[in-house]
C-alpha cells in the first residue's frame, strides 16, 4: 500500500504545505512572487537564479514538499522517482526563446524549452537518480498519474516518488506536488474533510486534496 505523506501547493501568490498556508505575497507578478518565495525561505542555492519560471515553480514546490520530511532524505538516490505533468509543456519559455532567435539565439533559454528540465533541476538539488517521466494532459489526469506511479512503487522501480502538476504560462501558474511513500506517515489531518488517518495513494484522495488546494489544473482559456 502506498501513501500520500506530504503535499505542497503554490498558487494565487500563496504557498501551502499539507494544507497550511506558509507564505503569501499578493500583488507580485509570477517572476517577482517566485523570487519572494525563494527569499522568504532563505534557500542558499545560486542555481535558482538561472532557472526559467517553470523550473523555479517546480523547484520551489519540491522544496516546500520535502521541507521537514526527514524520511524523504533516507532513500538511496536510485529509489526516488519524479513524475510530473502539465498542459503547456515549456511554452512560456518557448516564446521567450523564439523572441531571442530574432537577435541572437540564447542557449541558456533554449535548454529550458523542455518540460523535463524542471525534473532535472529537482534531481540535481536533491541527488535523486530514480525514475523520471513528464506527461502532458489538458488537465491533471490524476487517475493516470496514480496508476503510473503506483506501478513504479509496486514493482519496486521506486521506493518513494514525487508526483504532481506544475503549470506556468504567462501570468497563470499553479503547482501541486505529492510525496508518495510506502510508509503510512504521521497521520496528519491535512484537510477539513480528510480523516486523521494515513492517507492512501488513490485518485480519490488526490482529487480531494486538489479540490481543497485551489490549483487550476486546466489550460487557461485565452
Amino acid at each position, binding site marked *: 500500500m502506498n501513501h500520500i505523506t506530504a503535499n505542497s501547493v503554490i498558487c494565487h501568490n500563496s504557498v501551502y504545505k499539507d494544507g497550511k498556508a506558509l507564505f503569501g505575497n499578493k500583488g507580485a507578478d509570477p517572476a517577482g512572487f517566485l523570487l519572494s518565495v525563494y527569499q522568504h525561505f532563505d534557500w542558499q542555492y545560486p542555481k535558482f537564479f538561472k532557472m526559467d519560471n517553470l523550473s523555479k515553480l517546480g523547484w520551489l514546490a519540491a522544496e516546500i514538499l520535502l521541507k521537514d520530511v526527514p524520511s524523504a532524505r533516507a532513500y538511496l538516490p536510485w529509489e526516488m522517482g519524479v513524475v510530473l505533468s502539465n498542459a503547456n509543456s515549456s511554452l512560456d519559455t518557448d516564446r521567450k526563446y523564439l523572441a531571442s532567435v530574432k537577435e541572437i539565439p540564447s542557449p541558456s533559454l533554449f535548454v529550458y524549452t523542455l518540460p523535463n528540465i524542471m525534473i*532535472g533541476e529537482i534531481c*540535481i538539488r536533491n541527488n535523486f537518480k530514480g525514475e523520471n517521466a513528464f506527461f502532458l494532459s489538458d488537465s491533471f*489526469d490524476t487517475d493516470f498519474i496514480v496508476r503510473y506511479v503506483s506501478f513504479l512503487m509496486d514493482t519496486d522501480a521506486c521506493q518513494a516518488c514525487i508526483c504532481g502538476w506544475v503549470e506556468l504560462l504567462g501570468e497563470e501558474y499553479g503547482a501541486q506536488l505529492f510525496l508518495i511513500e510506502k510508509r503510512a506517515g504521521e497521520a496528519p489531518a491535512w484537510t477539513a474533510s480528510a480523516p486523521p488517518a494515513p492517507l492512501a495513494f488513490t485518485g480519490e484522495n488526490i482529487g480531494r486534496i486538489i479540490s481543497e488546494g485551489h490549483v487550476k489544473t486546466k489550460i487557461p482559456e485565452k
Partner: protein
Amino acid sequence: MSAVYVVSHNIISPLGSTTAENFSRLKEGVSGIRRHDDEKMSDQPFFASLLDNTKPLLREDSSVPYTKFEQLLIASMSDALLNSDIDVRDKATALIISSTKGNIGLLGTGTDDPELMKRIALPSSAAVVARHHNFINKPIVVSNACISGVLGILTGMRLIRSGQYENVVVAGADTVSKFVLSGFQSFQAISPGLCKPFDRQRDGINLGEGAATIVLSSQKKYGSGIRIASGSVSNDANHISGPSRTGTELFQIMTRSLREAGLQAADIDFISAHGTATVYNDEMEAKAIGLADLRSVPVNSLKGYYGHTLGAAGLIESIITIQSMKEGLILPTMGFEQIGVSEPLNICSSLLRTPLKNCLKTASGFGGCNAAMIMSK
C-alpha cells in the same frame, strides 16, 4: 505480470514510408542526411535528414487542416494499424503519443488561426490525431526530451503490465523547425558535416524528421515473436544540458533492466545506442557500456542515417532493432571510422549477420535523463 508482445510497427522517414522500406535502404547504406541551403531555416547551410515537403503524407484529403507533425503521426499509425488486428475502438486499447517539440514550428509563423495555435499544446494535437483514428481512450502524451520515444514504449509496457490495457499503440514524431535548429546551433551542437557517432572526429549532431509507431499487446496471438522484456529510466542529477561524467546512472538502469528481464550481461547480443555523435554523449554511453561489462557486444548508432529525430528517435531505433532481430542482421554505424571513446567498444562498422535474441536500447537527453530497454525474442 503479462508479457508485452510487439504486434506491428511503422517508420516514416526520408528513407521510406514503411519499416520494410526503411530497413532495405539502411541495408543498402543509404542515409537521409543532405546538405540544405534554406534561409528560412538557417543563415548558414546545414546537414539534416528532412522529408520532401512536396510529397503528400496522407493519401486522403481531409476536412481537418492537419499540421505536418499530425500528418506524420496519422500516416505512421495508419500503416502500423493496417498490419495488426487491434481494435482501436476497444476500451482496452490505449494510445501514447511521444514528441519532444510537436507543433512548435507553428510558433512565430504569424498564423492567427486560434484552432491551430491551440495545437501547439501537445494534448490538443494528440486529441486531433486520436480522433482521426477513432480511439475511444484519451491519448497519453509523453514529452521527456530525447528519451521520449523509449519512455513512450516503456509507458506502454507498464500500462499493459498493470493490467489496465491489453493493447497500446505508441506513436512518436518530430519535425525540424527553425526553433529547434537554431537552438542546437546556439549550443554549438550541430555538426558542420555528416555526423560521426563514436568516432574520433565526431563533432556534433545532425537533426532529422520522422515518425514511428509500435503496437504492443498482452495477447500472444497478435504478437510477432518479439517482446518488450524490461526497461527503466534514471536521472544523472548532475547537469541540465551535459551528460553524466561517469555514465553511472545509465549503467544503473542497464543493470536494473537486465535484472528485471532475468538476464545477465552475457545474454545481450546487440546494443542500439543513442549515439548522437556529440563528444560528451557518446563518451558517457561508452563508459556506461563499459561499466555494464558489455564492451564486446556489437553496438551501433543510426544517427548517421536518420539524424537525431528527437521524440521519434527511440521509436525508430527500437523498430529497426526489432527488424534486425527478425533478420539476424546488425547494421553498420554510418559515419563511424575510428573509435573515439575511452572504452574499447565493439562499434559495428559493416553489415553483421548474427542471430539476435536479447537486445538493449539506450537513450539519454537534456535534463540528465536516461532510458534503457530490453527487447527479447
